[in-house]
């Protein structure tokens, strides 16, 4: 499993980046969500995998007994997932709003504020 997962993550990153690079709003959101999933999995796998043995101390013990999963990446992941959700929700509503206000679904129509006039 340790061999297969890195490739799965690579495929997820590839697909999500390709979606993000689209001009269409909707695909941008799909790409963002997928990118978040890939990043979370990336963190999880980097923090080593442990089959079974969750990070919970049995009732009979005062300390955790090996094998138990590393709790640190899990704590990080929980935070990341929740914040990722915040970003997703925000971007979905933002894009809906932009579509309503400007009537466009093309990111390329929204570059006017970033461009500077070339003099002469």
């Amino acid at each position, binding site marked *: 499993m340790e*061999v297969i997962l890195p490739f799965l993550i690579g495929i997820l990153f590839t697909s999500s980046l390709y979606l993000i690079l689209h001009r269409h709003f*909707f695909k941008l959101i799909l790409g963002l969500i997928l990118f978040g999933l890939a990043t979370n999995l990336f963190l999880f796998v980097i923090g080593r995998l442990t089959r079974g043995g969750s*990070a919970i101390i049995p009732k009979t013990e005062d300390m955790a007994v090996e094998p*138990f999963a590393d*709790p640190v990446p899990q*704590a990080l992941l929980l935070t990341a997932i929740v914040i990722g959700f915040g970003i997703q929700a925000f971007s979905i509503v933002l894009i809906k709003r932009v579509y309503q206000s400007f009537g466009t679904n093309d990111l390329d129509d929204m*570059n006017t504020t970033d461009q500077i006039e*070339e003099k002469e």
Partner: protein
Amino acid sequence: MRRKVLNVISYEKTRDTFTNEAFLMFLAILAGLLFAFAAPFLYRWLGRWVYVPMALLPFCIFLYLLSLAPAVLAGSPLGEVQKWAPSLGINLHFYLDGLSLLFALLITGFGTLIMVYAGGYLKGNSLLGRFYLYLTLFMTAMLGLVLSGNLISLFIFWELTSISSYLLIGFGHEQESSRNSALQALLVTGLGGLALMAGLILVGMAGETYTLSELLTRGDMVTSHALYLPALVLVLLGAFTKSAQFPFHFWLPNAMAAPTPVSAYLHSATMVKAGVYLLARLTPVMGGTEVWQYTLMIVGGITTLLGAWLALQHSDLKAILAYTTISALGLLVTMTGIGTAPALEAMLVFLLAHALYKGTLFLVAGNVDHATGTRDIKQLYGLARSIRPTAIAALLAGFSMAGVLPFFGFIGKELVYEAVLEESPLRWMLFAVSFFSGMVFVAVALLIGFRIFWGRSQLSTPLQHPDKALLYLPPVVLSLVGLLFGLLPGLLATPILRRAAQAMLGEEQVFELALWHGFNLVLGLSLLTIALGYVVYRFSGSLQSHANRFERLYLFGPDKLYQHAVKGLITGATKITATIQNGYLRNYIVTIVITHILLLALSLWKDGPALEMSYRLEQLSDIRLYELVLILLVIPALIFLFQSRSRLTSIAIMGIIGYSIALFYILFGAPDVAATQLLIETLTVVIFVLILHKLPAFQYLTHARERYKYVLVSIAFGAAMTYIILLVKQYPLDSPLKAYYGENSYLLGQGRNIVNVILVDFRALDTLGEIVVLAVAAVGIVAMLKLRMQKGGKP
């Protein structure tokens, strides 16, 4: 060339400790700043009398410095340290020896006259208060510069003079030429200032101290250090830009856009001499080597010739004076470069003489301009009848500039000739340079000091107003001081110049200035200079009529180069910004991703560890069936996602992928993460479906060819991430955190679910931050949903 041996200075009596009189030095600088910023208010309160308090300030500092003079002249420099950043060796350190005393007296003495003069010159100008602010700020900065005993504080005051000079040159800011000249002066001297900062830091590294009094004794240590050459180049860049040496001389004539009091004070007597001061100050530290000597002599020599030559081709009073100032500065740098005791003495005498007569002549030019409304010498004649006091001042200063007998300029010229005629391989070249500039000085002195006032003419240029006391008193006083110094050189100039020379040479100097040296070669040369100078003067008119022949040469001059550089900088910046910041989100992302991959490749290229795959193949057999099933679920889902043309289908597919990943978390011992993932995935799908009908339908927008480019970038990125994981997992995870939390989460946190204890106990503050982020996102979402369209149709 004779290599000058620099004796180690022994300032045994240096009082670097706290003394009452030295503490006042700090107060003087502080008072300068206070007065500067009070000037606009004083102007509102006192009206045109504002010059009285403004002139009193430099006068009081002048008197105070005079009171310190006996101690300094007795041979003990004063010191005063205010701790600033002692751990870095940076202190507000004031240090007063002969050299700084000479400059400080010049700055405050001349400053007093200029403050009075400006009160008359700019009378009625509504911005007079602001003018005094800038001028006093400059004076304070200049005073701080010459009193600094620490390289870093010296640099800070140095920059302050550049900034106040910028403000003063641009004082007439309604005119575009003023603004451009001001910016040019700032850019040229500012760039030099940057070089100087780097240079001074290198000097500090070589000498292992930033304190001047310590550095002065470590000359050999600095000159033999590996950093000496770069430090020298950088310091010289700073000094040359400030003192308008070739090829940076072009900013000085343009700086004449400033009001005349500024030209007289900054661009003739004080600020442009800051570079010379720096060179003189650092002579014991960095001087004495061949590269120092030759660079200074060559650059100074070229500047001397160029300034003198260009001075003859102008008919604007201030332009002529500006070019002769450049010539004089070149001569000062040359003399510093020679570095022998007679040369340095001559440098100091000439510096003082030049400040006195050139300052006077600038003030005279200002008076003429003010009274007649023109500065063109072709339109000025017979002015002695109408503005006699100014004419007398001009005559006296002209005599000094020409080097005529009872004036201080004569002594300066004699000493310069004596010094350059000493035995050295460049002797005749140096003599030719100083002789040529001497000739031009005579011609210019005749032109300005004599012709426009006293020349034979039936008429005189009509006046707009008669001479005013505030305007003619300062030049008269200044020119009389020049005469007095010439008559009594032994009494007035010798003691301070001795100590100033000691600061540069390191040992006590015993020269005696005298007006009369007897009939010798140098006197003959002086007379010859005057005679030939008269010839040049006779032909100056025809030279000026040929002046426009040389205009094609100036197309390749440094001034044009500067203009091209500034223009190129602006258009170049516009082009680069337009390319980089093009407004396309995809391009930004592609740039980020490619940079990331390149940096990764770069760091792994040489000494990155190799990827080992052989033992991993065995792990393949370790895969359990249900894990395989999940992978086989995700990959077809992704394929479907790309093929789907329905928004609803793609949302459902996203759900499948999310749930599958949640199952991975369960399989590998992370039930909390899995629960959260399931919850979030469900919520996302719900939100999507809720507002799906308000989202745009699918469309193909990207061109096929572009798509291949993006596919390539995406694959490269995915491959890079895979590579990173595989590489990282080659090494054992060595973190004590897992064991720590495993041991302590129940004993310290009273919880059996370790992940939960981390979130709400060990790292509770981080969780609070997370909640804040969510709250902010929620506020943003609410705001966007509640936002109502305005009438214009835009939100």
